[in-house]
């Protein structure tokens, strides 16, 4: 199973990658290849469209403000399931693309136990065991997987209420909204972490590369795998050089 996923993902990565390029300059590392970036932003665009059109119908307070963006109430209602379908399909490829790095590891429990230190910025550098994604990123990913599934399962009865019956629709309506709130909260945290909170992160998803010092700060184990070098030693060296320069 995993072998098949890997083979499919590798070939998709190669084929899509052939249409684009990622320029890796000196002191940079390749973080996200073309295929991953295209997937991420396809997912993101459909997500935002589905989120906006969904929240227009979610609450009367937002109905008047948001529905004009989509050409009024009826078109908002008509487009929402199609945006969502786009999101689900694009995200399915994203799941295959990230299945391996997002797999939960024993070290992730350690990270979660010390999450307070991460949130309060108590430690400037991540622990050495943090690989391509940290446990918080994995948690967000799997929360989105779970709510996407919930969205799909509850969205279909709301799309075709007469096929599924009213009791199913009544239940689906509540679960659909809960999934929406989980996603909204996760989405806000995701944007904050990817931009203002961690300078140097956003470019990983646009240009595809990160600075080496970003990598040894936030993902030391990945740095070790990607470069074959010791993250802490390289950090000390860079610190020494900076100190020499300033003296």
């Amino acid at each position: 199973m995993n072998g098949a996923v890997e083979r499919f993902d590798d070939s998709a990565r190669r084929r899509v990658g052939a249409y684009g390029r990622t320029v890796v300059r000196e002191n940079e590392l390749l973080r996200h290849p073309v295929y991953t970036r295209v997937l991420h932003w396809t997912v993101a665009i459909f997500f935002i469209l589905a989120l906006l059109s969904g929240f227009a119908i979610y609450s009367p307070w937002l109905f008047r403000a948001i529905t004009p963006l989509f050409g009024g109430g009826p078109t908002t209602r008509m487009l929402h399931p199609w945006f969502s379908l786009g999101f689900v399909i694009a995200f399915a490829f994203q799941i295959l693309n990230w299945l391996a790095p997002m797999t939960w590891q024993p070290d992730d429990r350690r990270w979660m136990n010390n999450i307070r230190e991460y949130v309060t910025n108590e430690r400037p550098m991540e622990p050495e065991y943090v690989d391509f994604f940290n446990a918080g990123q994995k948690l967000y990913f799997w929360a989105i997987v779970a709510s996407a599934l919930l969205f799909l399962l509850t969205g279909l009865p709301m799309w075709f209420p007469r096929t599924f019956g009213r009791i199913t629709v009544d239940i689906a309506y509540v679960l659909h909204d809960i999934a929406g709130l989980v996603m909204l909260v996760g989405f806000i945290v995701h944007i904050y972490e990817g931009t203002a909170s961690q300078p140097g992160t956003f470019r990983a998803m646009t240009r595809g590369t990160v600075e080496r010092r970003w990598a040894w700060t936030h993902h030391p184990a990945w740095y070790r795998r990607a470069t074959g070098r010791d993250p802490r030693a390289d950090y000390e060296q860079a610190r020494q050089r900076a100190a020499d320069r300033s003296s």
Partner: protein
Amino acid sequence: MPTGTLQIKAISAHPGPVPGHGVQREEDVCKYIDVTTCIGCKACEVACVEWNDMPFQETRFDNTYQTMPATAWNYWNLIKFNEHARDDGSLMWLMRKDQCMHCEDPGCLRACPAEGAIVQYTNGIVDFQQENCIGCQYCVSGCPFDIPKFNSETKKVYKCTLCSDRVGQGLEPACIKACPTGCLKFGTKADMRALADARAQQLREHSGFANAGVYDPPSIGGTHVIYVLHDATHPEHYGGLPRNPVIPPTYTIWKSAAKPIGLLLALVAAPVAFFHYLMEGPKEPQP
């Protein structure tokens, strides 16, 4: 829109008070249906289709005296037929005129997310405004009586208007006007309720229907269509009239309480992120 008798009382998904509410003397209207004198002639069905100018649709014979299995988007008024076997083995033909009940607390209006798609007038009529309907069909699952019907071509939901256009001009609904037996009457809620109570008492005292009574379910605040039934203890015998009609809690508790609270909690995330940045600062690459 005539405002004299059609002053709007509630608007679906509308923030704030309803303009003009409370400035006029309120007079609830009501349709009275005495099922005990209905002969199942279907004049009301025809009158409804004609007045509302709806395309005729084919009837479906199912070995009963019922025109079709259920009301449709273009067939708002249907005499439900049931051959009911009494305990002594004798049969009763129960005819009930099925249409929108115009609930005092309408589940369709509560469920509707589109502003102005459903309104309730102060006289009690619950009316769909198709130009504002977005076709989500939440009203269908919010209704305790399975009345709103979706037209998949226009993507809108339709139901009985209690002839709000006629009532607004001081006329009775079309079905009332067509009824030849007088089992349908139209007037103020107080008058119709008094008439129904008197008729039920007559049935109990003089016609041997000990359980005769009025169907005006308090679980949804009463309705603006009331029935006189031979046996008010078994409304389900009359074409599946629910004994205790309720709006699904998903549309009462979830929508009025959990939704705003949930939205607030979700919106807290953005200020939390902002103040986190102010207080903790960014996590820069080292050194």
